[in-house]
């Protein structure tokens, strides 16, 4: 009889404690989840809009190109201007290109034992920036990152594990950097153990992945975002 009373008291106490816990915490995580899901939905909606507009931009550029080709067919002066613009567009990354080069693959490593506050195992935007800068310094003539073309105005940002390039959606591991140019020179630079010191250190510490392969023919897509410079006036 006494044991049953004890069990009942313990069960009741546990019930009160659980009820307290429910009031204090169960609702909070539920709200957190709802808030988080609302934020995720916003990101997804914005990314869908982003993709739509980029698709529209690519389509408009193709239509403009067709109209310019038509006009160039009627005038030698227009044709000369169009040739100039075609060359400028190619250097700005506005046209697709192909050629020999290297493909660099960057992927997340594994968290360290004290991984709570460390994000060194994640590929970040500085890693991508460093690889792209190295490749340009070694003669790359055009580069894309996960299918996003790098332009003269390209800027990199993001938080841990996320890479944002220009106005594109966030990219995450694995990241593929494709560079067209002097394949041997770029491969030699990537092989140099003194290059990319931060990535090399994290390869050792977190098994961050950095591998590359050369190829005789790689494709680069055209840039599909904005190159607006509204505050700049050509002198």
């Amino acid at each position: 009889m006494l044991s049953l009373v004890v069990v009942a008291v313990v069960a009741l106490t546990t019930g009160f404690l659980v009820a307290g816990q429910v009031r204090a915490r169960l609702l909070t995580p539920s709200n957190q989840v709802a808030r988080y899901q609302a934020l995720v939905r916003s990101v997804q909606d914005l990314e869908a809009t982003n993709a739509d507009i980029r698709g529209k931009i690519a389509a408009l550029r193709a239509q403009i190109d067709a109209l310019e080709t038509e006009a160039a067919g009627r005038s030698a002066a227009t044709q000369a201007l169009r040739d100039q613009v075609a060359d400028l567009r190619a250097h700005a990354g506005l046209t697709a290109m192909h050629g020999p080069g290297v493909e660099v693959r960057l992927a997340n490593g594994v968290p360290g034992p004290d991984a709570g506050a460390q994000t060194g195992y994640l590929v970040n935007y500085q890693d991508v920036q460093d690889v792209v800068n190295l490749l340009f310094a070694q003669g790359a003539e055009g580069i894309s990152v996960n299918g996003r073309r790098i332009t003269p105005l390209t800027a990199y940002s993001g938080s841990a594990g996320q890479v944002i390039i220009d106005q594109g959606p966030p990219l995450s591991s694995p990241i593929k950097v494709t560079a067209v140019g002097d394949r041997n020179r770029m491969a030699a630079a990537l092989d140099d153990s003194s290059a990319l010191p931060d990535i090399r250190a994290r390869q050792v510490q977190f098994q961050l992945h950095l591998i590359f392969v050369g190829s005789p023919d790689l494709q680069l897509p055209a840039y599909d975002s904005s190159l607006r410079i509204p505050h700049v006036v050509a002198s």
Partner: protein
Amino acid sequence: MSSRPRPSPRRRTSGRAVSVWLIALLVALVATVQIRSEAEVERTLVGIDTTSLAFLIDDLHRANESLQAESADLAQRKTTLESGGSGAADQVLSDEAKHLRAVEGLVPVHGPGVVITIDATGLTALDLQDALNNLAVGGAEAMAVNDRRVVAGVPIEQNGGGVAIDGVFVAAPWTITAIGDSNRIAEVADAMTLQLRADRRVRQASYRIEADVPIKAVISEKPFVYAIGS
């Protein structure tokens, strides 16, 4: 008068046991709900926290506004081409050539912006690349360092004890000139110089906003050797 049958001790015990089991079941149920609720939070938060999501939303809003503006410009250009003859095409092409030359750093430019001065010993090419990237993220549309024009693709390398831009050594102090939305760039410049002043290598870091910043330096376009238009 019949007396109510008293429950047998066995039935009483079994009733209490059921009550205890019900309570235990309830406790287990609530605990399970609680644990699953927390697990759901853990699972959905993997990889990105709410603060980062909020920043991401801000970035995407800004990106989409910029894309919309580009789309509107292109639609206008298309309308002009559709409505005019070769004269309209020549104008559209000339305007685009002028714009792309500015984008690629092939012509001198000017506009509102900031001038940042950094006097330091031991800053590296990576430091300069990071500084220029931060300014670009913050809205810089054209930049130069010590009168050397910089766009993405211009090599900034460690050259012995110093930093070289496109093969030319740039000695301290560095003067970084950036054209763009002055308010946005000034915010970046403010944070950057504050951080630099805390760096032992840095003797001085400051910036000033100017209504019209000239960038006279230009880049020579390098012809493609390996790349072929698709």
